[in-house]
C-alpha cells in the first residue's frame, strides 16, 4: 500500500486494518504522533488528512491510502518552525510535552478554518485534546499568538 506522508510517497506493508497511528510510529518511525487512549478520546494522535484534524488511533490505514497525510514532523519547513510551533515555543506551553504534537496539529487545523478564533471557539475546537499537565491557559494564549503570527506572515 502507498501513503503520502509529509509530502513524500511511502510504501507500507502493515495490514489494511492497522490504525494509521501505529503505521506512522512502528513502520515509518514517525514517533512524534502519540498514543494516549486508542479510542479517539484524548487527541494525542491527531494528524491531518487532507488538511483536517483526525484521530489516527481509530483510522484504519486503508482509509487514507490515497490521501495527503501531515504529521508533526511535517510542520516545520526549511524556513523553520510553523507559526503555531513558534507560538507554542514562545509561550512555553509544554510541560511533559507528550500531548503537544496533537495540540499543535489541532490548533493548526483550527486556524486554517478560522484565522481569528476567540476563546470560546478555541475551547470548542481543542476540547478533544487532553493535557494532563494542565497547560490549558498557555494553549489558549499560544493559539492567539499563532493567529497573530500568521496574520503578520500574510501581510508581509
Amino acid at each position: 500500500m502507498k501513503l503520502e506522508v509529509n509530502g513524500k510517497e511511502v510504501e507500507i506493508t502493515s495490514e489494511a486494518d492497522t490504525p494509521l497511528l501505529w503505521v506512522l510510529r512502528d513502520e515509518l518511525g514517525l514517533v512524534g504522533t502519540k498514543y494516549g487512549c486508542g479510542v479517539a478520546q484524548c487527541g494525542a494522535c491527531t494528524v491531518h488528512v487532507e488538511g483536517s484534524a483526525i484521530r489516527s488511533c481509530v483510522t484504519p490505514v486503508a482509509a487514507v491510502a490515497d490521501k495527503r497525510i501531515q504529521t508533526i514532523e511535517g510542520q516545520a519547513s526549511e524556513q523553520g518552525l510553523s507559526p503555531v510551533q513558534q507560538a507554542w515555543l514562545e509561550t512555553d506551553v509544554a510541560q511533559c510535552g507528550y500531548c503537544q504534537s496533537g495540540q499543535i496539529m489541532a490548533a493548526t487545523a483550527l486556524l486554517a478554518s478560522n484565522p481569528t478564533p476567540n476563546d470560546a471557539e478555541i475551547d470548542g475546537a481543542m476540547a478533544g485534546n487532553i493535557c494532563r499537565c494542565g497547560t490549558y491557559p498557555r494553549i489558549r494564549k499560544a493559539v492567539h499568538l499563532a493567529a497573530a503570527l500568521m496574520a503578520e506572515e500574510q501581510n508581509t
Partner: protein
Amino acid sequence: MSEHLTAAPMSRRRFMQRSGALLFAAQCPLGLSAKAVAGGTGAMMNSFVRIDPSNVITMLANNSEFGNGAYTVMSMMLAEELDVDYRSIALEAAPTSPEYYSPLFREYLTAGSVTTGSTFIPMRTAGAKARTMLLEAASRDWDVPMAELTTADATVTHADTGRRATYGELLEVIHRLDIQPPETVVLKDPSEFKILGKPARRYEGAGKVDGSAQFGIDIKLPGMLYGAIARPPVYGGSVVDFDATEALAMPGVVKAKAIRAGVVVLADSYWRAQKAKAKLKISWDRGLNAKVSTEQFYADYRALADTPGMLAEDIGDARGVLDAADEVVEATYEMPLLAHATLEPMNCIAQVEGDTCTIWSGTQYQSNDQEVISRFLGIPQQNVTIHRPLMGGSFGRRSSKTADYTVEAVEAAMGESVPVQIIWSREEDIRSGHYRPLFVHKLRGSVDDSGMPEAWHQVAVGQSLMQGTKHDPTYMVRGIDIYSLDGCLQEPFGVFPYGTSYQIPHHRVESHNAPKSGIVPQEWRSVGHTHTGIAYECFLDELAHKGGIDPMELRLRLTKDHARMNRVLRVLKEKCDWDKPLGPGRGRGVASRIYNISPVAQAVEVTVAENGDFTVDRVVCVVDCGFAVNPLGIEGQVEGGLAYGLGGVAFGNIDIVNGEVQQSNFHDYPVMRLPQMPKVEVHILPSDEPPTGVGEQATTPIVPAVVNALFNATGRRIRRFPLSSQGFNLV
C-alpha cells in the same frame, strides 16, 4: 537518536559538527552512548559537569524530567555559576550510582517537590567549582592573577592582555598542571544572578514542539520486540492456563508466554501484539482480591472512623471541650481511589543478557527499579543499567515502589535475545491497581464565644503508603504513616518540619491504617494533602459558617503567628477582590495549605446553574516558594497543578466491584479538558528565603476552595467525591 538532550534541537546538527564525541554517541545504539561519551575525550570536572575539548558542556542530571521543569532549573543553576547560556548545556541522565542519589532521600528519586530546593546548592557548587578550576588553569598558564580574569559564554578572558581561551581549550592546561577541584568555593550573591530568578523557557521545550522529544514509548532498538500483556480481570489475579494457537497464527507474532502480570504476546509491532492479545484464550485464577469492593471500603472505613485511632497529636483537651460544648459540628468526608492517568501510558524496554540487565524506562525512582530488578533476577545491583528518557507525565505514578511496569518488562524479556518493549494500553493503565488511596476523614469541632474554632477532632482512615515498605523506618511514627496525616497536623510531625500554619487551641488527630486490601496505594501529586487538605479546609469552612466568621478572615486570624502564610493570605484577599459582592448563583471559596514547605493559598469564583452545572470562573493563587528560581516555570506548575487537582475532584473516581475496576478509559474516567479550565492568576511573592517546591503545592487548595465556593453559592455541603457523583458537573 542518542539519549543526550540539548535545549535546541534545531541546532543539533551544529552541535554535532562541533563535537566528535557527540556525533559518535549519536550514531551508537542507545545505551552505548553514555559510556561512549564518558570514556571519550571529555573531562569530568566533577560528578555533574563534563567539558569536551570542543567546548560542549554536559550536565549529568540526577533528577527526572516529567514536565516538572527539573532539567530547566538544574541547567539554569549550573549555567549561572559557570557563566554559560543554560540552553547551550548538553544534558545526560546521570547513571544510577550512589553519588547521584538525592541528598534528601538518599535514593535516586525525584519526588516530593524538592528538586529545586535540593539541587540549588549542589548544582551551583558543581558549576562554581568547575569555573574555579578553569580560572586557575588560565591564571597559571598565562601567569596573570585570577582576580583579573573574567568568564562569559564558556570562555575565560584576560582583558589587559586580550588573552582568551574557551573552557574546552583549557582542559589541556588542567591536565598538564594537574589542577584539582577546590575544596570550597564561594557562590554568587543573588544580586549577581543573570539567569536565576528570571523567567526562563523550558530547557527541552524545542523538541516538544517539533515532535523530536524522545519519550520512553518512542525508543526503537535494533531487533526489538513489542509486548502486549493480557492482564487478569482482577488486579493481582494469575494465569491458570492459556491457549495461544490463534494468536500465534497472526502476522508478526513471535511468542506468547505467561508471566506474573498475565500473558504477554511478543510481536514485531505493538498493534500486532495488541491484536493478537485479544485472541488469547486464558483461564484465570481471580486471586485474593476477587471480593474487593470500594463500597465495602467506605463502609469499613466509616466504622473504623467511629473507633479510637492511633493518637498522632493532642494539643489542649479537644475531647473535653467537645464533650462540654453546647453544639458540636460533625462531618465525614470520603475520598475515592484515583488513577494518575499520565498521558504517556506506562512502558519499559528491557534486555537481559547473562547476569546483566538494561532497561530504558521513564522513571522517577531508578534506585528502586535497580533494586527490584536485581532482586528479581538475582544479579548484583550494579549489573542493572537504567537509561532514562523524558516522561509523558508522572504525578507520582512512575515512582512505583513495586516497580510494577519495570520488572514485568524484565520478566517478559527473560529468555529473549533481543530487547522487549512493553506498552500499556489506556485500559491497563486505568485498571493498574496503583491508586491514590481511598480515605475517610471524620471530623468534630466547636467554636468559642467569638465564633472562632476552639476544638478540633479528626480521625483519618485509609491505607498507608509506607507501612511495611523499606520507607517504614523514616515515614512511620509509632505505627502512624505521616503521609496519611500530612496536612492535618498543627505541629511538625516525624520528618515533616511544618504544620497546618493554623492555631486552634484544642487539636486532636488520630489515624487508622486501613487493612491492606490488595490495592496498591500510590503517591498522587501532593500525596496526603489530596485527602487531608479537602477534609481540613472544607471542615474549616463549616466551622467558619457555624461561628459566623468570613472564611478568609478566619484563616487570617488562625495564621496570625505564621508570618509567611499570613502574608500569602493578606495578598490573596486583596488580589482576589474578596469583599466584592457576587451575583446570584455565584460563590467564592478559599483554602490555604503548606506542603514541603511552601505556603500556598487560592481563592476561586464559581457560577452554579440550577441543574448543578458549574463553571470555575476565576482562580487567584498566591505562592511563597522562597527565592523564585524560574518564575515562568513556577507559574506553569501552579496552573497545571491546580488543573490536575480540579479534574480529580470534579470527575476522578475508581470503583471496584468484585475485584474488577469499573472504569477503563477517558470516557468513564474523565479528566480536565480545555473548556473547563478556569482563568488563573498566579502571584509569586518576592522572597530571599531558600527556594522550596511548587510542583504539587497548587494541586490541593483548589479542591476545597471550589467545594467551599459551591457551598457559598448554593448552601449545599459536599462531603463525598467526585463532585459529578453529587450532582455538580464542572462544565
